[in-house]
């Protein structure tokens, strides 16, 4: 899923206070799972904004609405579009994709991001999410025992650990980040495939990554 984090309150408030009537638009998919921009978080922000507006004497009316997904046309139903039409601005509580989809959908209504989009990640335990994929466009997981050196090694090294691996941890953040190469080594050892790690991997072709420019995927067979 895409993992995001709520923006600092002040940053959101600075945007919201320019308008009289604002819609907080939640997203029911990834950001609901990572507890950043779902229905509940929309409600928290709405309450905070109401309190702050009262405290500071600003005249801002805040509305709340959450749709299933902000990155798909079909979820922007009539009721949603009607609500958007009533307000001066929308704070999208979706990921960066959702914000941009809203911007494209809502024409002349101002749109602001309510979240900082972080990464493609997994839930390690409730309240803890970690990066797992970098979306490089050419998956190499099969060669590394299912542990990604591109996303999980701080230096994206493809030929083994740097000198900064100690006790299974990465020197960049030993508290929170495992050394990807320790994980790869351990996995490959369990799988009896250690000798594969002795092969020299050539430079990666980053043109499939964002380095090649913004990417699209097209499936002619499923197009309508």
């Amino acid at each position, binding site marked *: 899923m895409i993992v995001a984090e709520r923006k600092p309150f002040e940053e959101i408030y600075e945007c919201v206070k320019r308008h009289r009537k604002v819609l907080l638009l939640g997203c029911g998919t990834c950001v609901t799972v990572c507890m950043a921009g779902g229905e509940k978080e929309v409600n928290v922000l709405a309450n905070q904004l109401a309190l702050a507006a009262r405290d500071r004497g600003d005249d801002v009316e805040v509305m709340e609405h959450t749709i299933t997904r902000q990155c798909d046309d079909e979820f922007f139903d009539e009721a949603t579009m009607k609500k958007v039409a009533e307000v001066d601005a929308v704070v999208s509580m979706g990921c960066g994709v959702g914000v941009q989809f809203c911007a494209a959908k809502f024409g002349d209504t101002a749109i602001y991001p309510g979240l900082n989009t972080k990464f493609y990640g997994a839930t390690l335990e409730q309240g803890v999410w970690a990066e797992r994929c970098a979306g490089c466009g050419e998956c190499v997981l099969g060669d590394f025992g299912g542990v990604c050196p591109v996303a999980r090694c701080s230096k994206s090294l493809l030929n083994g650990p740097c000198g*900064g691996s100690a006790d299974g941890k990465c020197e960049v953040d030993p508290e929170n980040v495992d050394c990807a190469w320790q994980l790869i080594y351990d996995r490959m050892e369990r799988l009896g495939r250690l000798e594969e790690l002795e092969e*020299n991997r050539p430079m990666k072709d980053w043109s499939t990554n964002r380095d090649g420019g913004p990417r699209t995927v097209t499936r002619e067979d499923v197009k309508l």
Partner: protein
Amino acid sequence: MSEQKTLKSGSRLEKILTEGHFAVTGELGPPKSADVEIIKKKAGYLKGVVDAVNITDNQTAIVRMSSMAAGLFALQAGLEPVVQITCRDRNRLAIQADVLGAQACGLRNILCLSGDHQRFGNHPGSKNVFDMDSIQLINMLKRMRDDKVFACGDEIRNTKKQPVVEPRPFIGAAANPFGDPFAFRVIRLAKKVKAGADFIQTQCIYDMERFKRWMTEVVNRGLHEQVYILAGITPLKSVRMAEYMRDKVAGLSVPDGLIERLEKAENPREEGEKIAVEQIQEIREIPGIAGVHIMAIEAEKSVAGLAEKAGLLPRPA
């Protein structure tokens, strides 16, 4: 066949190693300013003391004068530079451009490194590159030198009518016998050798027992016959420095015995030098070692004394 032709680069370091001398390399950190005088001064301390001098590339991710420019000044000051290149700051275009420039400037040794992560430096907000890793960098240089092609496969010539003029570096790489997983450390060295490394400089050694274990494995694999291994030495200057090395540098262990010696010493700096001399003497006895790499960053002045006491002087011509 003349000797010149059998050498890959013709650098002094290559000659010394090929002739079987016990090589000594040093390190010179470029200034954190445009002050050339600092390079000249440091070069003065190292001239005649070491066979070649590593010129660090934004070491510890702190901005310094470029290793190419500083290397050129070191060359002019009579040293033979080993220009360091990290994968952190430049992509394959920039690195290959620099390698061509290095050749044109007469810089004959290049050391390939992944590079310290920028989190540890003075620009933690910068974007890192890591277009390739150090092993891929080694291989890129080897292909430039031996196959005379760029990473993309194009020949290294200005136009089709003009001659191929390829860079001919003596290719170095680093090895850290102390990082984890330990079992991978020799594999990684083997990969560097396979990629085309001509010489290796190791991380500074304090844990001699672990280093010897690593070297045994290196010799068992016959790697010492394919690459020149220079053992890293960094003289300890104080108890604080020893503790810093032990606690703050990932994968580096400093045995308690060494720290105790420094604590008991009346003059820890002298004791540190004494320890370094003993380490060099011990290392010379380890099979497969071709030289030492003395990293006395911001203490270039102290290298001559250490080399003298360790019996490394005079250096061969």
